C-alpha cells in the first residue's frame, strides 16, 4: 500500500502544483514567456486525447525502433560479454572499444549515421543499439566475473567441460547482472530513439516532438513526451517481470 501511495501522492501533488502555476500564468510571468509555451496538465491531457491517433501511430513506430534496436544490443551485448569472458585476449582487446562506444556523441554522429544507413528507421536502430549495448555488456561481464572460483573447481572435479561450467554455473550467476544491465539500457534506449528520429525524417514520437517544438505546439509535444515515458516504464516493467520469472532463487 505504502509502496503505491507515496509515489502516487507525490505525483498528484506535483501535477496539481503545475496546473496552478500554468493556468494562473504565474510561471510564464515569472520566466517572462508567452503563456502558450507552458501548457498546463489539463491542456496536455486534451492534446493527448485530440491527437490520440497521431500519437498512437508515431508511438508504434518508435516502439518498434526501440524494441528492435534493444534486441540487437541484447544479442551483441551477450555475444561480446561471453567472448570477453571466455578469452582473456579478447577481453583485453575489446574492453577499450566497448568503453569508447559509450563516449560517442550520439547527436553529433547521427547525421553520419543517416548517410550510412539511409533515411528511415536504420539510423535510429543504430543509435538505440549503440546506446543500450554498453550497460548490457558491462553488467553481464561483471556477472561472469562474480562467479566463485571454488565453484568452478568443484565443477571441474565433477567432470564438467568448459561449456558445462558456462551453462550450469556461470550463465545462471550472470543472469541477474544481465537483467540489471538490460533495465538500465531500456530507459536509455528510448532516449536513443528520440535522438535518432531528430535527424531521420521518418515518423516517430521523437520526430513529432521536434516538429511540434518548431510549430510551437507545446501541449502536443508534452503529450508525446508523456507517451514516451509510459513506453519506457512499460518496457522496464516487462523486463522486471521477466527477471522475476527467470531469476527465482534471489
Amino acid at each position, binding site marked *: 500500500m505504502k509502496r503505491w501511495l507515496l509515489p502516487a501522492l507525490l505525483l498528484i501533488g506535483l501535477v496539481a502544483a503545475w496546473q496552478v502555476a500554468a493556468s494562473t500564468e504565474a510561471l510564464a510571468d515569472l520566466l517572462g514567456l508567452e503563456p502558450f509555451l507552458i501548457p498546463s496538465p489539463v491542456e496536455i491531457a486534451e492534446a493527448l486525447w485530440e491527437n490520440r491517433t497521431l500519437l498512437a501511430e508515431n508511438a508504434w513506430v518508435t516502439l518498434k525502433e526501440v524494441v528492435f534496436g534493444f534486441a540487437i544490443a541484447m544479442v551483441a551485448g551477450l555475444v561480446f560479454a561471453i567472448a570477453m569472458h571466455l578469452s582473456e585476449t579478447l577481453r583485453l582487446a575489446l574492453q577499450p572499444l566497448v568503453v569508447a562506444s559509450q563516449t560517442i556523441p550520439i547527436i553529433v554522429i547521427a547525421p553520419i549515421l543517416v548517410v550510412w544507413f539511409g533515411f528511415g528507421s536504420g539510423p535510429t536502430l543504430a543509435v538505440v543499439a549503440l546506446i543500450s549495448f554498453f550497460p548490457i555488456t558491462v553488467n553481464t561481464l561483471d556477472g561472469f566475473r562474480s562467479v566463485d572460483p571454488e565453484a568452478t573447481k568443484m*565443477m571441474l572435479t565433477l567432470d564438467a567441460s568448459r561449456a558445462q561450467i558456462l551453462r550450469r*554455473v556461470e550463465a545462471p550467476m550472470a543472469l541477474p547482472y544481465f537483467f540489471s544491465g538490460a533495465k538500465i539500457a531500456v530507459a536509455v534506449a528510448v532516449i536513443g530513439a528520440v535522438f535518432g528520429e531528430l535527424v531521420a525524417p521518418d515518423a516517430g514520437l521523437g520526430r513529432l516532438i521536434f516538429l511540434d517544438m518548431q510549430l510551437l505546439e507545446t501541449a502536443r509535444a508534452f503529450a508525446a513526451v508523456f507517451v514516451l515515458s509510459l513506453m519506457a516504464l512499460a518496457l522496464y516493467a516487462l523486463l522486471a517481470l521477466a527477471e522475476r520469472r527467470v531469476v527465482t532463487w534471489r
Partner: protein
Amino acid sequence: MPAKAKEFAAAATLPSPGDSNGDGVSIRGLTHSYGELTTIDSLDLEVPAHGVLGLVGPSGCGKSTLLELISGLQEPSQGDIALGEATSAAGRLARCAFMPQRDLLLPWLTAIDNAALALRNRGLRRAQARRRAGLLFERFGLAGFERAKPAELSGGMRQRVAFLRTLMAGKPVMALDEPFASLDAITRGEMQEWLARALEADPRTVVLVTHDVEEALYLCDRVAVLSARPARIVDELSAPSPRAPDRDEAVTDPAFVAARERALHALRGGAL
C-alpha cells in the same frame, strides 16, 4: 562387507568407478611453492585403498592446497602424487572428487539436481540423473527434500547434499575440505556419525582435512598432524576405533582420549 553395507549398496546402485574402485593415494617428496613462498615441504603420505586419512594442522598451513594438488586441480612444484595408476593432473582429476569447505550448492538448482551434477556433466539425461540421485536421498535422510532449493535446507542438510554430490561423482578417491566446519557443535557431531555410516556402507579412499582433532580421530583410520607453513608431518597416529557405532562412547574411551592428547600436543609443537 557387513550386511547393512550390502543392503545399502544394493538399494542404491552407486555410480561405480569400475575396476579402479580400489585406488589408494601415494604422495612422495611433495614440495609446493607460490613464488618464493613454500607452502608444502617434502611431504610423504600413503593412503591405502578404502583408507581414510585425516590431515590436521594449524590454519593456513597449506592443507587446502594439498587437497587441490591431490584432486588434480593443481600440479605440484616438485614430487609425485599418484591416485592408483594416475599421476598426471588430468588423471587425478578423473579419479578424485573434491568437497569444498563451503557447500557451494548452486542456488538455482533443486537439492536433487545439485546432487546429480556429476551425472549430468557426464551426459545423463535429467530424468535419469534424478532417478539415480533420488535412490540415495532416503538413505541420506533427505527424503522429501528432493525438489527443495538449497536456501530452504538447514546447514546439516546442505552439507549432506554436498557430500552426496561428491559421492555421486563415483570417483574412487574423495578429498573433503573441512566438510563440517560451518556447522554448530551438535549438528557437527551428528554429521560425523552420519558420514561414518556412509563410509562404512560405501567405502572410498578419503583424504579429510579438518582443524578438529576429535573429528579426525573419530572418522579416520590414520591422522597426520601437519606443522605450520611450510607443511611437514609432525606426527602420524592410528585412530583407536575408526567410525565406531556409538560416537559419544568412542570419543570418551581412554585410548581415544590419549590419542587426542597426543595429537593436540603434536599440533601445539608443530604450530611453533
